[in-house]
């Protein structure tokens, strides 16, 4: 094997020293930089401990809706969540639209909180067959605002004048999840509800047209439910864990 030229060794040595002295906090970048006055204007936003604006809005909601708001959650600087019962779903939307100026209908969806019965861990290369005879379901854990049931409806409304987005959640019945449609309040809810119906099997009462939006009309099952199998993962091993890429500057 040929000897390594001296200048390359020197360069490698210099690069190593350079890397040691150049901790990520230093201002020296190894590549092209353009110096400018505003270059020092580093954005140092501290994550606030409390979010006064969100609390103000939450107080307005609590004043107007009272006890129909079951729980609420504020993630400072990130958003506001409230949970209502599914009986009050449409009233809540109406209230937010009229009183808090939430005219912008952002989106609506469902979260299935049941842990996947297929053992979707990275250790398992293939989905495992769920055991049919275990009657004890795995413990469900809910996210912000908690929950009681497997299916949780979630909808985001936005108020442009208050510059605030509000996340509403509602628990749905496990066996026959159903709720009043939001179309009279927001016509844009139409397609979102159709999607939620076909993907999660949630029925929206008073919806004029609950046909499938993506899937063929006679498709059986609700694909985004956690107990719906993902066929490709059943059939061949998933190479996922192998190809985690090294970060820039990190040795392989």
């Amino acid at each position, binding site marked *: 094997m040929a000897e390594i030229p001296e200048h390359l060794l020197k360069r490698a040595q210099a690069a190593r020293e350079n890397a040691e002295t150049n901790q990520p906090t230093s201002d020296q970048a190894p590549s092209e930089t353009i110096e400018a006055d505003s270059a020092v204007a580093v954005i140092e936003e501290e994550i606030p401990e409390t979010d006064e604006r969100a609390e103000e809005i939450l107080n307005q909601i609590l004043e107007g809706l009272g006890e129909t708001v079951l729980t609420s959650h504020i993630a400072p600087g990130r958003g506001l969540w409230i949970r209502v019962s599914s009986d009050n779903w449409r009233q809540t939307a109406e209230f937010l639209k009229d009183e808090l100026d939430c005219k912008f209908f952002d989106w609506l969806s469902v979260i299935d909180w049941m842990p996947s019965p297929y053992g979707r861990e990275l250790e398992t290369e293939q989905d495992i067959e769920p055991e049919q005879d275990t009657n004890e379901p795995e413990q469900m854990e809910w996210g912000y605002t908690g929950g009681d049931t497997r299916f949780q409806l979630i909808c985001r409304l936005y108020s442009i004048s208050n510059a605030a987005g509000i996340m509403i959640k509602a628990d749905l019945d496990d066996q026959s999840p159903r709720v009043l449609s939001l179309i009279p309040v927001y016509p844009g809810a139409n397609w979102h509800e159709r999607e939620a119906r076909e993907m999660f099997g949630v029925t929206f009462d008073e919806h004029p047209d609950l046909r499938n939006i993506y899937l063929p009309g006679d498709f059986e099952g609700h694909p985004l439910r956690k107990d719906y199998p*993902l066929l490709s993962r059943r059939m061949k091993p998933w190479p996922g864990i192998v190809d985690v890429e090294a*970060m820039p500057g990190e040795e392989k």
Partner: protein
Amino acid sequence: MSTTTENEQLAYIASQAADARVNVEVETDEGMTLNLGPQHPATHGTLRIIAKLDGEKVVTAEPIMGYMHRGYEKLTEVRTYPQVTTLINRIDWLGSFANEVPFILAAEQLMEVEAPPRAQWIRTILFELSRIANVCLFLGDMAVQVGATTPVFYAFRDREFVLNQIERVTGGRFHPNFDRIGGLKDDLPKGWIEETRGALERMKSFCDEMEELVLGNEIFQARTRNIGVIPGDVALSYGLSGANLRASGVDWDIRRDANVGLVYDQVDWKVWTHPDGDSFARFWVRLQETREACNIIDQLLGSIPSGPIMAKVPRIIKVPAGEAYVATENPLGEMGYYVVSKGDLTPFRVKIRSASFSNMSITPWILKDVFVPDIISILASLYFILGDIDR
């Protein structure tokens, strides 16, 4: 709940494919049914619209989607966080870098990681470059839909310069997969800033050209003025966002009003709105926004701070339990990801809020009582990408 076997699923797909006949016109007692698509030049892919006609007037029009549904929301549940960006790149394939940003920002929020300033700058620049690459095609394509053939060639020609710049940084013209949790994959290559300035000059002159060639054109104005008018409150209740909303006179831009993680507050720029709400206004707003994007990039290029491009993140990324929603002002409108994490390597649930899905949900409303040729110009002016509807 009954589950289906693989064979049954394949049978469904086969039967649906056989059903998808193209452009069949059926005369019945109630009038004529016109089937547009699923493969029609005006639909950018496989959107199908069934219009019931009374003479030349549309009685009802109903879009049928799903020909390109790829189930990304399900797939994200079995991919690690860094792997998800590969998938979501393909949602809006014309401005694909912009798709990655909100997801990465949502994951960063949950991990409480912030990208270093240099990474934020480059992210914003690439974000705006993908806006130009995306909207540029709209400007040419809209003209084609109303009958002018030339502008689309100009659009394809000049978009190439922007795509080249994206490719030089990311290595990919359409699917960069460049954004990482905590920063970016790589730094800018040498000489890139000057070259980008050159590309921006090209784009600016392209915008001027479009303004003269298309906006001032009498035929174009006759085909778009007062056609497909969407009032502001209707647009809001249907969840329209982006240029479609601003063309209806609603002054709302996430970049300015709810900015997360990108550096638009460091730039002097303007949000363009138009009061008319018609097809012409939507074209006009997008044209101005392309110029404004050039302006934003121009300013950012001169002020990129030095420093690292990657924050310290663990090599194997586990995102702490929590929920986060981050939306950005993508070329097509508001695109957001609602990420539910349970502290695993993979997301527990990802809800993808894509712009075109909401933008297109207004079509049954807006296509009512229009004339058949206007279907095309209205659809073109709403500007959707099929992958962004179907996901």
